[in-house]
């Protein structure tokens, strides 16, 4: 039994002043996320994904039920001090995180989080240096203004600002939105590396390829409800479930389906790489003769 890093039990959430019905509300969420796992949260726009992760970061407090993150338990009457303690362990990379940059230099901006944690200057300095290197930015950039960087560099600088706090849980809300294919791959392999080093990853994404390639747990949200929490293999072998929740199929699954419709049977492949492996072994076998 792996220790659960995050546990939501019977969580309901409504905005205090919400006027009409279901927008941004969550109903009866039960979810367990294991420490060190890589969890993808998917669902169409407005399904409640962002609200869900805001609860995990203590930016919102449940109207009822409880959210447990590490040793901190959050209920409707949570204190600010508890929430602050929770946020020390959770890093949150918002959508378009480059919009949060504010300091005169990249290094100062990256230091903002660690300084808020009250770390001693040497520790802050070391963390800044390391996280700038981790996101693949050259050292000299630390001295430059964040506003002079290119779009992709700004994104990485902002992510460095979150990583510098050494969170044990990292939430990323569509971190690759607006990036080109190459930067997307770089960012995703960085996240995979952090995960391999023990960080619990929660990734909100619209890209099913990312879910198929990286996640070991996938949570489907729809209209503020948790539809299912399962493994990608199970989700992607259930076309009906995907269709019901307005989700696309990964390319490899789509291709396999089309080949199967023509009468070819192939083992399940989540990524194009896996599909190519299966296909190559079949075609290659014939070519050898």
């Amino acid at each position: 039994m792996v220790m659960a890093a995050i546990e939501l039990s019977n969580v309901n959430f409504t905005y205090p002043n919400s006027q009409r019905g279901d927008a941004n509300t969550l109903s009866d969420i039960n979810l367990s996320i294991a420490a060190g796992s890589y969890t993808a949260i998917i669902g169409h726009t407005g399904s409640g994904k962002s609200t869900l992760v805001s609860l995990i970061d203590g930016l919102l407090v449940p109207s009822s039920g409880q959210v447990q993150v590490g040793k901190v338990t959050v209920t409707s009457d949570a204190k600010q001090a508890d929430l602050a303690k929770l946020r020390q362990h959770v890093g949150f990379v918002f959508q378009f995180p480059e919009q949060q940059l504010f300091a005169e230099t990249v290094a100062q901006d990256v230091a903002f989080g660690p300084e808020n944690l009250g770390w001693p200057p040497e520790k802050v300095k070391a963390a800044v240096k390391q996280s700038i290197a981790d996101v693949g930015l050259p050292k000299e950039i630390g001295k430059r203004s964040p506003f002079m960087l290119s779009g992709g560099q700004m994104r990485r600088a902002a992510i460095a600002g979150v990583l510098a706090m050494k969170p044990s849980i990292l939430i990323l809300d569509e971190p690759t939105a607006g990036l080109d294919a190459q930067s997307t791959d770089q960012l995703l392999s960085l996240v995979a590396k952090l995960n391999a080093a023990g960080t619990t990853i929660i990734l909100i994404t619209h890209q099913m390829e990312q879910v198929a390639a990286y996640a070991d747990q996938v949570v489907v949200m729809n209209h503020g409800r948790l539809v299912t929490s399962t493994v990608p293999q199970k989700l992607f072998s259930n076309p009906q479930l995907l269709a019901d929740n307005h989700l696309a199929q990964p390319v490899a699954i789509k291709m396999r389906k089309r080949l199967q419709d023509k009468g070819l049977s192939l083992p399940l492949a989540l990524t194009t790489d896996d599909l190519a492996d299966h296909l190559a072994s079949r075609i290659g076998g014939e070519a050898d003769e």
Partner: protein
Amino acid sequence: MNNAIVFGSYVPGSSLLHRLDPRTKLFLCVAYVVLVFFANSFVTSAWLTVALLVTMVLSQVGFGLYWRGIRPLMWIILITVAFQILFSTGGKVYWHWGIMSITHDGLVNSLIIFFRFMVIITASTVLTATTPTLRIADALSWYMKPLRVVKVPVNQITLMISIALRFIPTIMEEAGKITNAQRSRGMNFAEGSLVRRVRRMVPILIPLFVDSFKRAEELATAMEARGYDPAAPRTHYRQLHWASRDTISLCLFAVVTVILFGLRIIL
């Protein structure tokens, strides 16, 4: 993303008040505020309150919604009233401590101020709850028309106001997002002295400025690409229509005014 009802937000509907021409409503609201300063006694104040209550009923916007719109401002009102009570002098003294005292005149003055605050805020909420902001801007530009004679660029100002109004929710949402991002990086708003708290606004205000400038630049390019030329004449899609209900409303208001001054003379 935040659904909180803020002061001055529009409540969709089709009541008589919703259908009135915005010029009528804007004029009535301003004129009513002026009238409030002529109410000098309990009876005259009560008369204006009744007039306002009737309007609120006619607007078909629930009293609960009005209250939710006004509630956030209650603190400002109460603090002002408290100051008035504690620091004004004159008349019988009931209690005093240092420079603070509670006097008869102070109580009366604060009561008047409380009344004025409440009805003025409520009246403007009636206006904003029944009129989309852009319609108010339309009305404002109509009233500004005469200024064209003295070369005031009324059309540009109107467009500017309507764009500013259009972007308020966008910028508010952005501010919320940036605040959350900085909170999640360990920023704590609640602690420390006032100076330290103000300094903490920097990580929110700078990104907000940067973002707003970027938006402004992109919007300017988009407007130019769509053929906008500030110097060139433009036609106008949206027009205002004066109806008989507007004339009737003005007449009713005249009646309210006459009765108010009548009461002042009699009492």
